[in-house]
């Protein structure tokens, strides 16, 4: 009995050690937050467009087609790296990509898109981060996959890269089904 009491803290210590070790080796990013909007309708909003003199009205524009919503800015370096993959995705059939230009300079964005190519079917302006807050954005870039019913199905925090591109395309196809 006494021996058990003596040994129990050591056993407990090793169990805690094991738990910590497990959390250390699994592939996880503790600063990445789950989105609250998964399986919810896209937020309702109105926004001005960068390239046309029109107003974009949500959720009306999200119906009929699977849509990617990409928050980007010219001041964001990972967005530039990601751009190549967005262009690749824009070749995909039955997929629309909407860009939300987050707290940026419009002139600079137009130049940026001319230089790097424009994968977006429309570019929305978000000068005061209000759209970003509505979508729960906390760091650029972020990409949402919205299904043809206007329901948000997935969020990627951080850029689409060589490493996660295939997995991301798979997610898009899953949502399209």
């Amino acid at each position, binding site marked *: 009995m006494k021996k058990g009491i003596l040994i129990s803290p050591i056993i407990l210590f090793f169990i805690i050690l094991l738990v910590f070790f497990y959390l250390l080796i699994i592939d996880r990013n503790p*600063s990445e*937050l*789950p989105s*609250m*909007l998964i399986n919810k309708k896209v937020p309702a909003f109105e926004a001005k467009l960068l390239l046309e003199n029109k107003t974009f009205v949500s959720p009306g524009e999200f119906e009929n087609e699977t849509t990617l919503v990409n928050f980007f800015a010219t001041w964001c370096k990972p967005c530039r790296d990601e751009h190549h993959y967005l262009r690749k995705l824009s070749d995909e059939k039955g997929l629309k990509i909407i860009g939300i230009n987050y*707290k940026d300079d419009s002139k600079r964005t137009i130049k940026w898109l001319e230089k790097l190519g424009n994968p977006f079917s429309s570019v929305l302006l978000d000068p*005061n*981060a*209000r759209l*970003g*807050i*509505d*979508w*729960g954005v*906390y*760091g650029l870039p972020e990409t949402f996959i919205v299904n043809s019913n206007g329901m948000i199905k997935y969020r990627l925090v951080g850029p689409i890269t060589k490493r996660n591109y295939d997995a991301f395309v798979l997610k898009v196809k899953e949502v399209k089904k």
Partner: protein
Amino acid sequence: MQRILLAILVYLMMSQSIIINCYSVEPDEFLQNPKKELRARNISKNIRCLVCQNQSIDESSAPLAKDLRILIRIKIEQGNSDEEIYDFLTKRYGDFILLNPPLKISTLFLWILPFVFLAIGIFVIFLHNNKSKKLDYNK
């Protein structure tokens, strides 16, 4: 001597914690009405900055923290209650944005565990005391 040094050390640590308590609210963000401004400050102190994740938006100088501070003030000016503002933010960013986690079934452990440990601690001290008392009588 050691005690004096320890006291000085504790004093320094405490005073530093007071100095660290600085704020990032910029003058152009202030509301004219001091009562409303106070409400905005109190809400901001309870809202986590999602960029730094260990500071409130009241203390953080991250751009998102500033945007949220401004938004909270706009909402106050529009006549929203504190609850409505908290609700607005948690709907978009989850309970994680609150520095004080709400008491829910999923957070029950978080709230109860300290008291469980306190009880265990008291129990252990009590046990230990009893034992040493018995030893004293045996002498």
